[in-house]
Each structure stands twice: as C-alpha cells, then as structure tokens.
C-alpha cells in the first residue's frame, strides 16, 4: 500500500534519514521502533509532506507522493496523528474535528463522521464545546486521532501516541488502534513503548541513526533485544 524507497531527508547539512526503505501492507498494523533521534518523526513528516525528501520515493497505491504538498497527501488518503498531538488549543473540540475535515466538502458526510467520532470517543462528546487546550493529555490524544480520522484515511500514521500518558490511558490508546485496524484502517505506528507495540504489530521495523536495521514479524527477534535496541540503539549492551 505504502512503499518508501531510499528516502533521504536532511535538516540543513545533517542527514536525518540516510536512505530509508520500508513497506506498509494494506489492512495491517506496521510499527516503526527506534531510539530517540533515530529519525522516526522525520520519516512521518516526510511521508505526510511537511518535510521534502532530498531523494527517494514514497509510493502510495502506485502513485509517487514524495515532495507533494500536504494537502495532496491528505487527499490521497493518508492522515498523520503527529508527535505531541498538536491539537488547536484555542479551538473547541468540535472545531478541531471540523478542521480535520477541511479538505472534504460533503457536509452530510462530515456531520455523520463527527457523530461517529463522538460515539467512538464519548469523552470528546462531553467536551465538544470546550477549548482543546483545556483537555487532559489522554483526551487531547483521542482528539488528535479523531481529527485525523475525519479525513477518512485509508492509511493512518501515528507518531508516538502513547508517550507521556498514564498506563490505563496507554491501554485505551492501544485498544483504539486495534479497533480501528479491525474496522479496516491500515496503520503505520511509531512507538517508544516497544512492549505494547509488539503486541499489536503484524510487522515491525527498527530504525537506528537514520537507517532501517531490522525488518520482521514480532517473534522473529527476542523481545528483550527489540526493547534494548528500540531504547538504546544496538551499540550498547544492557
């Protein structure tokens, strides 16, 4: 569904991605694990069109989207739940959802999807007229997910959705990820929480220092080693 080939993305002279290739299969949950600074967010931002790659291609359903404007990528059916949620703090929950549907013009469909989001996330319904900045961290994460779903994406990218949340809320986020996937959404998930990620992933990649260093199914690599490499990188020992 999504094929990333040999992507190089840099900040000035620093290459954050040094030729990354990976693939996301339709209907599956694919995870990207790796230590801080490995380039996970850079890859997500490159796929979403916020960062322009120096080189390489991002094929989605056969079309090359590399370097296209974010709007084109959203219209192609890819939505990103960004790192740190990035909700619009002074807009209400309902307005955040409306912003998520910005590229759509089917008023009835948007209203229907909004109700579906409220059904899936009852807490957002209770707070629909509240400013997003007043929500708790977990609620903001739900809102960021719901806002991305308003795109009706075929592929949902999620960048560390569980970071900084209480254990119970993390459980809930992963339950939502499973539910969404069961309902037909393909998911490409970046996680620091390797233990939880390996439980939901059909396939996972390890990214270290801008390069993919492992690709396989959970179980192909001992969890202890995955966790160690996802947190610390492969050069250190436990």
């Amino acid at each position, binding site marked *: 569904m999504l094929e990333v080939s040999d992507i190089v993305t840099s900040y000035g002279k620093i290459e954050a991605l040094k030729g990354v290739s990976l693939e996301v299969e339709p209907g599956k949950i694919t995870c990207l694990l790796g230590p801080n600074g490995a380039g996970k967010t850079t890859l997500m931002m490159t796929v*979403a*069109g*916020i960062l322009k790659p120096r080189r390489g291609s991002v094929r989605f359903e056969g079309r090359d989207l590399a370097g296209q*404007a*974010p*709007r084109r990528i*959203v*219209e192609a059916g890819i*939505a*990103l739940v*960004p790192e740190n949620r*990035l*909700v*619009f*703090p*002074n*807009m209400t929950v309902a*307005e955040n959802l*409306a*912003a*998520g549907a*910005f*590229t759509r013009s089917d008023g009835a469909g948007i209203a229907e999807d909004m109700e579906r989001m409220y059904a899936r996330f009852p807490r957002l319904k209770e707070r629909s007229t509240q400013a997003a900045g007043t929500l708790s961290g977990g609620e903001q994460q739900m809102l960021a997910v719901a*806002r*991305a779903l308003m*795109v009706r994406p075929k592929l949902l990218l999620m960048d560390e959705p569980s970071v900084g949340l209480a254990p119970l809320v993390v459980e809930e986020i992963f339950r939502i990820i499973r539910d969404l996937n069961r309902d037909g959404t393909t998911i490409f998930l970046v996680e620091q929480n390797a233990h939880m990620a390996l439980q939901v992933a059909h396939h996972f990649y390890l990214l270290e220092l801008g390069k993919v260093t492992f690709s396989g199914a959970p179980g192909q690599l001992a969890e202890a080693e995955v966790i160690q490499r996802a947190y610390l990188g492969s050069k250190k020992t436990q």
Partner: protein
Amino acid sequence: MVLVQAIIDGILVGTTYALIGIGFTLIFGVMHKLNLAFAAASIAGAFASLVAWQHFKDLPVPLVFLISAAAAGVLGYLIYLTCFRFIPLKSPLATLMATVGMLIFLEEIVTHVSDGKAQNYPGMLPDARWTLGPLDIRVDYILVFAISVAAMLLLLALLYRTRLGIATRAVAQQPVAAQLCGISLDRTNAATFVMSGVLGGLAGAMIGSSAELLSNLLPLQLTVKGLIVTVIGGLGSIPGAIVAGLLVGAVEKGVETWSVLARDLCVMLLIFVFLVAKPAGIFGKLNVRD
C-alpha cells in the same frame, strides 16, 4: 463636561484605530511577523479612493469607502507577495526590513499623489449634530463607530463561522497541524493579508472622511499609532486591539481639550506606562499563540 464630550468623541473615532490595530494583530497572529507597511497601505488605499473621487466627480461616499477598502485589500496581497511570500521566514529580520522598505515606498507614493499637502476628502454628513442633554455629538462620528463595529462583527463572523476562519485560526495556533489537515499556509496567509487590508482601507477612509481631509503625513502617523494600539492591546489579541484603540482615541481627544501639542506626547507616555507595567499588553499572554 468638555472632557466627557471629548472622551466620548475619542471612543467613537477610536474604533478606526481599533481596526488598524486588528489589522496588525491579525497578520501577527497568523504569521508571527510584523507587517510595518500595513497602516501605510491602509492610507494608500484611502488615497486611491481619493484619486477616484477627484476623477469621477460626485462619487457617493459609500462607494469611495468601498474603493478604499478594495484598494487596500489588493495592496495587502501585494505586500504579502513582495515582503513575505518569497522571503525566508526563518530569518527574524528579513520580512521586517522588507516591510520597512514597503512603508517608505508607499509613503513616497502618497507624497506624490498628494503633492505633499493635505487633500480634501468627502465627509459624511459633516454638519449633522445629535444633542443629548449637555452633550453635542457629531453624527458622522456615530457613523464611524457604527461602520467600524459592523466591520468587526463581520470579521468575527468570518473567523468563527466560516471555513476560511477555521483555516486562519488553525494556522495561527498550530501551523504544522493545520497543514496536516490539508490547509494551505500560503493561501491562508494571503487571505489574512487581504482581510486585514480591507479593514485598514475602511479605517483609512473613515479617518480622512471625519476630518474631510486626507493628510500626506498620515502614513507615518497611523503606523506609529497602530503599533501603539497593537502593543497596548497585546500582539495577536483582537479584543486587546479593540480596547486599546478606544483607549488611545479617548486619551487623544481628552488631552486635546487641554493642549493639542501634548496629545501625541501623552499617547507615547501611555505606551511607556504599558511597556513597564504590563509588557504583554491588556490581553496579551506572552508566548501563547492566538
């Protein structure tokens, strides 16, 4: 009583300063950059309408106002293209210097168009008065107030009830997330410059109209006053710009009853007081967007 009268007049006319402050603040809110040419462009819009008025004799005043608003809206877009669109936004001073250049350029154009002196400009009902007990209020001041308030309500409706409003607020609060929603930064920025330009052109026309004169010195004077209003109100705050505009208008007219020469001095004192006592402005929260 004279003072009360002056303060009421000041509040009525202060709404034009509020519009100018809103223009500065809107652009700052969305781009986190100052457009120093904004007030000059507003007056340039008024001069464009003056040229039209002189050319086609007897243009109705509402049409003159609309021409000023439209011309300033177009100028707003041109300023966006020349001073922001292709200039590196990461460099904190690049766009600021570009707008200083544009300010000087527009001022020069106004000097040429005006022959370096104040020009007659059509007034709205200049002789009509409304007597209310001991107060004697000019009807055209009431019109200025009404038109300004209507323009502000229209702006609020635009910002809070339309798709463009969602885009504008989204870009102001969280530009990366806005792009992830498919909102174009370029188009939203351009629309903001046009919106604020239209407000500024309307304000410029009303400032000229209530004096029945368009002064060639207005571009600089209004730039300074608009910045003062913006700083007192808090950069990026629309309610702040409104309150500060009325405050500056009231202080100006109030001091005028005592001494015309002390007027601008007192407005400067006002900004000094605010910078010391409340540097973030009336409603400004330093570091917080929107």
